[in-house]
């Protein structure tokens, strides 16, 4: 029996779904961990990003944060944080995942505010709005499509990264794959592939759903403008 057939058999066993530590349990863990991590990331990254964009400072900082987190292995962070005051367990895992949600959230919040039409900003200033009011009433609404795009990237990344929490016994769907690797590859092959299908499927599902959400929160005129810009860019490169 090849691994794919084994995987189908494994997925067809109802006990693998409902047992304690089965697929449904793991799915719940995976989603709650990811949701908490993204929430934490938003709470930290959005205010900082919006403020940096508003004050026009910190472009270098945003870039630095993105580059440094790229170089830190997820595995290392998942291993190191439980050794700090956070202790071993769910909080450390959530914080580690949140770290990977920060760069896209921060960068998009920053860009979203920076790209706001300067004339709209000046007009708001001229109407007597204070700095905070300009941020809240003009720049923030204009940045919403960017915030949504950042949220989507961050959420998908966190759901994908949460699979690695299984390395530190943090739960989640990755645990199914790890358990499969713990067996012999011939015996666990089916479970490994089945876990892979579940993790990949969940990531793609989240990506798809959030793509629709992103579309929904982008105002229709902006949507058309972006598409037109894309088409112009494509036409410009169609010289050959």
């Amino acid at each position, binding site marked *: 029996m090849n691994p794919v057939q084994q995987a189908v058999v494994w997925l067809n066993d109802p006990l693998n779904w409902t047992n304690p530590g089965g697929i449904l349990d793991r799915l719940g863990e995976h989603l709650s961990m990811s949701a908490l991590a993204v929430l934490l990331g938003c709470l930290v990254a959005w205010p900082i990003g919006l403020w940096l964009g508003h004050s026009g400072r910190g472009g270098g900082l945003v870039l630095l944060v993105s580059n440094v987190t790229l*170089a830190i292995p997820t595995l*290392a962070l998942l291993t190191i944080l439980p050794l700090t005051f956070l202790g071993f367990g769910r909080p450390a895992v959530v914080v580690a995942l949140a770290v990977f949600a920060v760069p896209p959230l921060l960068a998009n919040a920053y860009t979203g505010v920076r790209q706001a039409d300067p004339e709209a900003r000046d007009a708001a200033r001229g109407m007597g709005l204070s700095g905070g009011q300009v941020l809240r009433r003009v720049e923030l609404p204009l940045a919403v499509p960017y915030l949504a795009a950042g949220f989507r990237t961050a959420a998908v990344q966190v759901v994908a990264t949460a699979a690695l929490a299984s390395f530190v016994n943090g739960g989640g769907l990755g645990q199914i*794959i*790890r358990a499969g690797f713990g067996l012999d590859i011939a015996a666990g092959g089916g479970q490994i592939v089945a*876990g*892979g299908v579940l993790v*990949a499927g969940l990531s793609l599902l989240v*990506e798809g759903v959030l793509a629709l959400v992103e579309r929904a929160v982008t105002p229709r005129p902006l949507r058309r403008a972006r598409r037109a810009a894309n088409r112009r860019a494509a036409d410009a*490169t169609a*010289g050959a």
Partner: protein
Amino acid sequence: MSLHLSYRAAPGNPWFSWQYVRDNSDTILAALREHTWLTARAVLIAALVALPLAVAAYWFRSLAGPIVALTGVLYTVPSLALFAFLAPYLGIGAITVLTVVALYALLVIVRNALAGLNQVPPEVREAAEGMGYGRWGRLFRIELPLALPGILTGVRLATVSTVALVTVGVVVGRGGLGQLIFAGFQNNFYKAEIMTGTVLCVLLALVLDLILAGVGRLLTPWLRGRNS
């Protein structure tokens, strides 16, 4: 087991321990060598596959959509899931790690190379055409050199993220420095081992990035005056 004895020799459980590094320099160097070697091979393979793909997407616009969409979807798939799909077929070992990390590097390089090629101004392309360059001549003499900054950015991004990604290879027993991190975790949270692996990972990413930046400067002498 003698290793375990030397682990306990340092009092407490410090974050850094020179004694650990000294006593286990062989293991650490072997892990570092494996990590560097895996990263270098993965990025090289990825670049060799990615560039023709990017050129194909650039020349035939009908291919650009599917290639970019496919790379986007593949990039969404978590690394652990990719290991899960490939390990039963490729087995436990370096080949599986190499395939997975090369695949992710590939996606990054294709995207950046395509963006770089698309940035070549149409006037430049027309001028080259007017000078009698054919499709291949234009590609090698004009378009690729102009797209080089974009391509190199992609290679640098891919290298840094590959260094981080190789650690996940411990799941199939070949994680380079990830081996140290994971072993330290299993070995009663031996902090010095975990930190040594992590710091070396970040340093390796930094060093490789600097090397590639240097190579980039050498390859694009025409940009140097502009930046300074």
